[in-house]
């Protein structure tokens, strides 16, 4: 685990609770992310997902613990870690293209203007934005198009780590689907390491290599790391047919509905790592009882 591309070690976040005491959001959270991996983190509101995200982005400082990327200590924001915010965070006075070139010219200061524009246009095209639309201001674009611009801006910067903070939270279900497909497309072209917060279980299964499950706050922990044993490329319509799909889904729903509350408030162990969970149903004959619990195999890391 210590050799992970990104390693989070004993991260603790406390805030003063306004009554002289302290409020612990999460304690001793430790996990790793490998290069090129797509990891989603699932958990109820208030478990500190966004705080972890902000710490990874360098926008917030943890009370204690360290984040290391490529063996180096992370502190403060950096172009190595790109962020897609939930509310798009596009600059409203710039056009879609200028919002992307804004990031690209900051990332590659040596590039000529023409090259910056070419690179940015290419990434906008990858998320399906071409022609006239890229010269419009964010206020003239729909929510889905704005989030596409935001994703293009993050990917065009080619950061070592891409952080997505509930990027589809504000979108309707149909738009969400198309943009998820576009996200998969861009991601598979780039080998980008991605860490994403989401509330949507199906979205997490579709996108992630691994899902981290958090228990409820306060004193939240990263309890499990569930491997998504569904081969890529994944297509929205087909993955539900995969034998592992509902087993994984049921496991996640069960965790969020019941166990996240049961496990919460437990004394966290020092240097606690999430328990790896691997669910494989493929050897099993069909037509069996779909109850996944007995077939759960916990693999010790």
């Amino acid at each position, binding site marked *: 685990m210590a050799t992970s591309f990104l390693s989070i070690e004993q991260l603790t976040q406390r805030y003063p609770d306004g009554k002289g005491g302290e409020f612990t959001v999460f304690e001793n959270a430790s996990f790793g992310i490998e290069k090129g991996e797509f990891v989603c983190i699932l958990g109820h509101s208030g478990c500190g997902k966004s705080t972890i995200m902000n710490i990874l982005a360098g926008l917030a400082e943890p009370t204690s613990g360290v984040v290391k990327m490529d063996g180096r200590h992370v502190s403060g924001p*950096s172009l190595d870690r790109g962020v897609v915010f939930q509310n798009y965070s596009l600059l409203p006075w710039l056009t879609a293209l200028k919002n992307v070139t804004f990031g690209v010219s900051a990332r590659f200061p040596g590039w000529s203007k023409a090259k910056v524009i070419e690179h940015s246009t290419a990434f906008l095209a990858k998320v399906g934005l071409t022609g006239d639309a890229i010269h419009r201001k964010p206020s003239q674009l729909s929510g889905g198009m704005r989030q596409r611009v935001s994703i293009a801006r993050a990917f065009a910067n080619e950061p070592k780590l891409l952080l997505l903070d509930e990027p589809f939270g504000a979108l309707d279900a149909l738009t969400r689907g198309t943009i998820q497909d576009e996200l998969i497309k861009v991601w598979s072209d780039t080998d980008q390491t991605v860490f994403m917060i989401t509330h949507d279980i199906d979205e997490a299964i579709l996108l992630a290599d691994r899902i981290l499950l958090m228990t409820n706050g306060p004193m939240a922990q990263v309890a499990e790391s569930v491997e998504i044993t569904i081969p890529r490329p994944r297509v929205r319509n087909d993955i539900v047919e995969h034998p592992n799909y509902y087993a994984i889904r049921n496991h996640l729903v069960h965790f969020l509905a019941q166990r996240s509350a049961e496990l919460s408030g437990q004394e966290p162990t020092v240097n606690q790592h999430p328990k790896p969970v691997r669910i494989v149903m493929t050897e099993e004959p069909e037509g069996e009882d779909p109850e996944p619990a007995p077939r759960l195999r916990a693999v010790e890391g």
Partner: protein
Amino acid sequence: MGTLSENKRAALLSVLLLVVGCLIWELSIPAQKAAGELTEYELLTGAGQPKAGVPPPSQVLAKAWEQLSNPFYDAGPNDKGIGIQIGYSIYRVLAGYLLAALIAIPLGFLIGMSSVAYKALNPFIQVLRPISPLAWMPLALFVIQDSEASAIFVIFICSIWPMLINTAFGVAGVREDWVNVARTHELGALKTAFTVILPAAAPTIVTGMRISIGIAWLVIVAAEMLVGGTGIGYYVWNEWNNLDLTSVIFSILMIGIVGMLLDSMFGLLQRTVAYTE
């Protein structure tokens, strides 16, 4: 009428109101008695002299034509064209105003960025802001010892506050998300200020600038009545002393028109920096 667009109907109504208003004004001015109708006694007591009175609009219009057809003549200290007078006023307003902008906008940035600076400077701003700019005039005249510079100072002191407060307000209100975008793109402080905070706060800052130019134009008339010499304010007062009410009314109208032009310039600027979220 039903087929005309809203704007055309409004314009027609405006013209109608103007014509009716001028007509009522014209008819309500009593005609001066002609000298031939006066008795000998009346002539001896000076009743034949033209009486000072509010002139009808036709006279004001004739005056405007005469003045505007030769706006830049200069026939000595008390007889200059309206263009020259307005030019002096605009020069003073712009000098004081630009000086104020030069100080208010950077200082407003500082106050908006740092809550310590805001808290430290706020009491001074709150006390200085409500002071009528003309109250500074005696002090300015004594310290600066130059009426021209004192007038510019008065403009400076009256136009600094709206710009200062609006800049601070606009900068402090820049969305955290946009600042975070700048931070995650590793922009330096100066680059963040110019590429993110300035455009984000620009609509609020320009609103402050627009309020300031309006106040400055209000104050210059009063200031020039005090310091004298040149300018549209002095011109109004001078024509009052000459009891030339036609010129007084004409210059009142000119003050309004120039003020409107200054304001619409900032309105234009406001539209160019505006953005919708």
